[in-house]
C-alpha cells in the first residue's frame, strides 16, 4: 500500500461507521442480480478467471474511493458493472461504443414497451433489423 491509500484506510477505519444489515435481501434491485449472474456465468465459461475478476473489481473500488466515491460501499454494484465493462473491453470482447449503442437501444425499447409487456430489444423503434453486429 502506498501512503495515500494507508491514510484512506486509516480514515475509513476511524471515521466511517460499518453499515449493518440483518439477513436482508441479497440483491437490492434486479439489475444487481443480473450483473452478478453475468460475472458468474462468464467465469464458469472461462472468459476470465476468479483472480482476474477480483483484481478488476478491487481496482474499480479502489479508484472510486480514491476519487471521493461512496465510503459506505452502497455503490458496490455500480462498481461491479464498471469492472465488468472494463474487463470485457480489455479482453477485446466489447467496446465503449458497442455498449453505449446497445444501452441506448435498450433504453428506447423500455420506453416503447407498454406497461405489463416484457421489454425486448426488438421494441426499440430505431433498432436496425437483424443481429446487433456491433462490437
Amino acid at each position, binding site marked *: 500500500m502506498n501512503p495515500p491509500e494507508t491514510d484512506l484506510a486509516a480514515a475509513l477505519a476511524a471515521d466511517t*461507521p460499518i453499515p449493518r444489515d440483518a439477513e436482508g435481501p441479497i440483491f437490492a434491485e434486479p*439489475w444487481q442480480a443480473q450483473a452478478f*449472474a453475468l460475472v458468474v456465468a462468464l467465469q464458469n465459461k472461462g472468459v476470465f478467471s476468479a483472480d482476474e475478476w477480483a483484481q478488476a*473489481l478491487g481496482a474499480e473500488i479502489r479508484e472510486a474511493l480514491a476519487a471521493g466515491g461512496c465510503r459506505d460501499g452502497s455503490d458496490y454494484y455500480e462498481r461491479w458493472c464498471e469492472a465488468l465493462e472494463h474487463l470485457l473491453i480489455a479482453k477485446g470482447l466489447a467496446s465503449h461504443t458497442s455498449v*453505449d449503442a446497445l444501452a441506448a437501444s435498450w433504453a428506447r425499447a*423500455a420506453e416503447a414497451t407498454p406497461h405489463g409487456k416484457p*421489454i425486448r430489444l426488438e421494441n426499440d423503434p430505431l433498432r436496425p433489423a437483424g*443481429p446487433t453486429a456491433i462490437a
Partner: protein
Amino acid sequence: MGGHHHDHDHDNHFTAIEARVKALETLMVEKGYVDPAALDAIIDTYETKIGPRDGARVVARAWTDPAFAARLKADGTAAVAELGYGGRGGEHIVACFNTPEEHNLIVCTLCSCYPWPVLGLPPVWYKSPPYRAKAVIDPRGTIADFGVTLPENQRIRVWDSTAETRFMVIPMRPAGTEGWSEEKLASIVSRDSMIGTGLPRVEDAA
C-alpha cells in the same frame, strides 16, 4: 378526443445502469458466452439455495463428529464437498477454528472475496470500505462494533481472502449445548459467527 400521437403511457423506463447491464448481457449472449437460462439459474441458486444455513451445517457436523472436524481442518474444500457444498471449482475453502487462545476474523481487503459455496453472498457490511479497512487495522474494535467483546487474552487472527482461497470461521461450541442434535446446533450458528464478527448464542436455538 385529442389527436395526440403520444398518449400511450411511458410506464417502462430503464435507468442508465439497468440499460447498461442489459447491453452487456446482450453482447455476451450474442457472442455465445452466456445462455440467458443459465443466468436465471445462477440468480435462483444464490437467492434461494445457497446461504449461511449451509455453513451452519458444516459447523454443527464439526462439533459433533471429531473425525469430520479433523478432515475439515486438513482440507476444507474436500470436507464441505462431503456435505454436498462447493463444486464451482477454483476456490479453496479453508476452515479457521476458533480456540480459547485465538479468535479468527475474515475479510477481503481487495474487494469482496467470500466463501460463497458455504455462506452464499456476503452481507452489505462485508463489502463496505470501512469494514475492509478496520478489520485489519483494529480487529478487536471491529468485532466490538458488532456488539461482541472478546476476552483480552484471546488473540485475534485476521485472514485476508483471495480469489483462490476463501476462509470460513468455525466458532467454538458454546457450553450448555451438550446432547443437542446436529440440527439444533446448526440453528445457533449465525452467519456472522462464521465470519468472526459474531459468536453462536445458546438463546438463539430453534
